[in-house]
């Protein structure tokens, strides 16, 4: 993907007026969208980004469409999820199909009477991003973006169902004529509608129309763009990501990451997802511009690591200490702390190394680091808790190859070291807490003791299987199932209460 990006970038014409040759007259502001214009634009973007710190939107020159208040005011993560949300919400575009738009986030949007709740909207967004994006992007090249204030109704209507669009009730009176024109997909209409799109100040459309403004000149000089819509749509989309590598994670760049990195359970959560996708484009190792590493909100990280995305209970990562080591509370605690220490070191290292090393080398280096840490832990345990060393045995060195290290590496290497540190601490603490809980339960049931204290009841023999590895796996399965059940219930009730509010 990265190679493709580099190749694609020079193809993007520097002069937007090329578009006139195709009969698509696109009034582009003088200060053209900076990041769509190859090297110079990118340098400019770099400069302005350096000024503005982490907020990518402020990198664009003033006067363009995309300097938008509400997005800048959000935190980084919220910002991205919001942008993608607005895209995804705009895609279905038809109220009867259950299109959802987060009205509350859009300053100028006219609320449709039956706008669903925002919580629901986030859920839906996940499902929608799963379908191939280029089907939606394809007709968009030939047809035309919609008018202002009618973002939900006419954005991608031609993509979805061209025939049915004119019948739908437009959200605004202003939008009515544009919405009717838009689906026709003819250049004449686009002339009329494009300015409207460019000066649109409805927030959700900003990212979209920006993209379109950049893409359109690029499309204009490609003769085959109209003929092979799906291909060109894809190409345009990838070019889009290339042109704005650090500002906004476009959806095509985000999708493969999501599949590979996140488990299905994790992918459900919108906020955490956004935190990861935020850094999607910064993966390219040979990119000359090194983006500032995004930060993720600490509270979210802590909540995820310890509770809602607990690596042991939900991720089932690093099960090996459960099997053997966590047969008593003390050994489980010791094993958990070992994993926590190793994870903090490797996560911090991964964040500091970042993309300076290719991924494979990075993983190897991190494993070596973890091995060093676990060697130190061996000595520390021998000095502090000598009674656990025998019980843990080979499992102290095995901390070096704990799956948790590599599971969090992908997050850490793309985030700010501070965020990586918080993430490591949260995940490690969550892991250690779950492991200790497991160990305590196993000790109580399996050997009738609590941290070594004898609590045996006469006439109630210990259930020996829980002292054995099989019991550990059995109990882990039961605990994980219970935790998932509680989480699903909580999310369902949260969604229900949000819906009830609106």
């Amino acid at each position, binding site marked *: 993907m990265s190679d493709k990006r580099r190749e694609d970038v020079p193809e993007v014409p520097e002069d937007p007026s090329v578009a006139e040759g195709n009969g698509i007259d696109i009034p582009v502001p003088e200060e053209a969208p900076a990041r769509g214009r190859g090297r110079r634009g990118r340098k400019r973007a770099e400069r302005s980004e350096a000024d503005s710190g982490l907020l990518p939107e402020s990198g664009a020159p003033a006067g363009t469409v995309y300097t938008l208040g509400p997005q800048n005011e959000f935190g980084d993560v919220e910002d991205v999820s919001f942008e993608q949300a607005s895209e995804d919400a705009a895609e279905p575009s038809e109220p009867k199909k259950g299109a959802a738009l987060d009205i509350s986030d859009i300053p100028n949007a006219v609320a449709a009477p039956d706008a669903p709740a925002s919580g629901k909207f986030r859920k839906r967004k996940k499902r929608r991003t799963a379908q191939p994006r280029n089907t939606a992007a394809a007709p968009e090249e030939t047809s035309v973006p919609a008018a202002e204030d009618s973002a939900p109704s006419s954005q991608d209507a031609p993509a979805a169902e061209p025939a049915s669009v004119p019948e739908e009730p437009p959200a605004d009176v202003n939008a009515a004529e544009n919405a009717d024109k838009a689906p026709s997909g003819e250049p004449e209409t686009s002339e009329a509608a494009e300015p409207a799109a460019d000066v649109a100040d409805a927030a959700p459309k900003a990212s979209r129309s920006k993209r379109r403004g950049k893409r359109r000149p690029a499309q204009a000089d490609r003769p085959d763009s109209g003929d092979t819509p799906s291909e060109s749509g894809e190409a345009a989309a990838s070019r889009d990501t290339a042109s704005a590598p650090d500002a906004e994670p476009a959806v095509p760049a985000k999708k493969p990451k999501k599949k590979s990195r996140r488990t299905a359970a994790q992918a459900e959560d919108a906020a955490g997802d956004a935190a990861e996708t935020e850094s999607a484009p910064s993966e390219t190792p040979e990119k000359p511009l090194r983006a500032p590493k995004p930060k993720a909100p600490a509270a979210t990280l802590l909540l995820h690591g310890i509770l809602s995305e607990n690596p042991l209970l939900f991720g089932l990562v690093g099960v090996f200490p459960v099997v053997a080591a966590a047969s008593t509370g003390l050994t489980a605690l010791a094993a958990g702390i070992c994993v926590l220490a190793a994870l903090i070191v490797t996560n911090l290292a991964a964040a500091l190394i970042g993309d300076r090393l290719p991924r494979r080398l990075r993983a190897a280096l991190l494993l070596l680091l973890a091995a060093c840490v676990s060697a130190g832990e061996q000595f520390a345990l021998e000095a502090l808790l000598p009674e656990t060393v025998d019980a843990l045995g080979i499992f102290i060195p095995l901390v070096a190859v704990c799956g948790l290290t590599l599971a969090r590496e992908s997050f850490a290497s793309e985030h700010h070291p501070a965020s990586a540190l918080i993430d490591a601490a949260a995940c490690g603490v969550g892991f250690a807490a779950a492991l200790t809980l497991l160990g305590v339960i196993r000790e109580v049931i399996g050997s009738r003791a609590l941290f070594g204290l004898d609590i045996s009841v006469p006439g109630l*023999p210990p*259930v*020996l*299987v829980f002292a*054995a590895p*099989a019991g550990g796996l*059995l109990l882990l399965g*039961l605990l994980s*199932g219970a935790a998932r059940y509680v989480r699903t219930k909580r999310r369902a009730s949260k969604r229900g209460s949000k819906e009830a509010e609106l």
Partner: protein
Amino acid sequence: MARSNLIPKARQNPLARGSGSLRRSPAPHLRADASTRSIMSDVLIALSPMLIVSVFFYGFRTLALTLTSVASCIAFEWLFRRAVKKPASVGDLSAVVTGVLLAYNLPASVPYWIPVVGAAFAILIVKQLYGGIGKNFLNPALAGKAFLLVCFPDVMQTWTQPFEHLPLFGPFEAETAANPLEALKNGLIPDDSALELLLGRHAGALGETCALLLLFGGLYLILRRVISARIPLVYLGTVAVVTLLFPLGGARPLEWMTSELLSGSLILAAFFMATDYTTSPVTPLGQTVYAVGCGLVTVFLRYFGGWTESVCFAILIMNSCAWLVDRIRLPQSRGGARNVR
């Protein structure tokens, strides 16, 4: 194959039950009136003589243990289905069969809470957490027995002498007896003669001793087409061949083979538990491989394993391989869209 006849009546096409002489219905056209309930009733009928013999051997405590086991299986099944708001499945009698088989695998001297714990594990964790009947991948009764054996090994491996009737309630002192498997484990021919082993006059679990009645029960199931003879015969045949070829400790091969075949829960498991529809393979080849695997693992564990009784572990291991064994030669579908030009 019995299985193809087992389409329940409720699933028949209602249009096919017309009053005219001509009926149109999709295949299969030959139907049996078998249902889960009728199959389980057959299994219970086949198992019931053994219960009478066990009362004859050990007193009414065996009956009480069996009833406890059955009642707790039914209770757990009903409670779980009710708790998760699923349709009740007690009526198909599968929980009753599980309870009876679990009790048959217990020594007569176990306290009454043992079958309750075993039933809880078998029904709740092994059967219902995976979705209930037809969805479990381990035989519930065997898994319950294995769980009890691993958790409470001393209680589960204390055997009493037959014809010494145990009291129904209260503590009792009973003379312990040696299970013939313990002698076999040490490479010795057990003291019990082959006839005693066949008739069940030896120490063992309450429902596994009388090999003759179990064989009759298995024959009944085969004649009723509830089970096919393939799995039990191949299983027992594999054990017979391997023990005949490799007797331990220089024993006479034929005597060794007979003792191995008739002691322990081998016959009970081969006819009533290895043939569980849910946990055994479907294809004929798969069933053969599965049964051979059961036999090999059984003998291997009896020779080299840590437990005296290894049949339950062997069948559980092969249960968890059943999906793999079924892939050895999947039936080829003929026709279909790919062949249409």
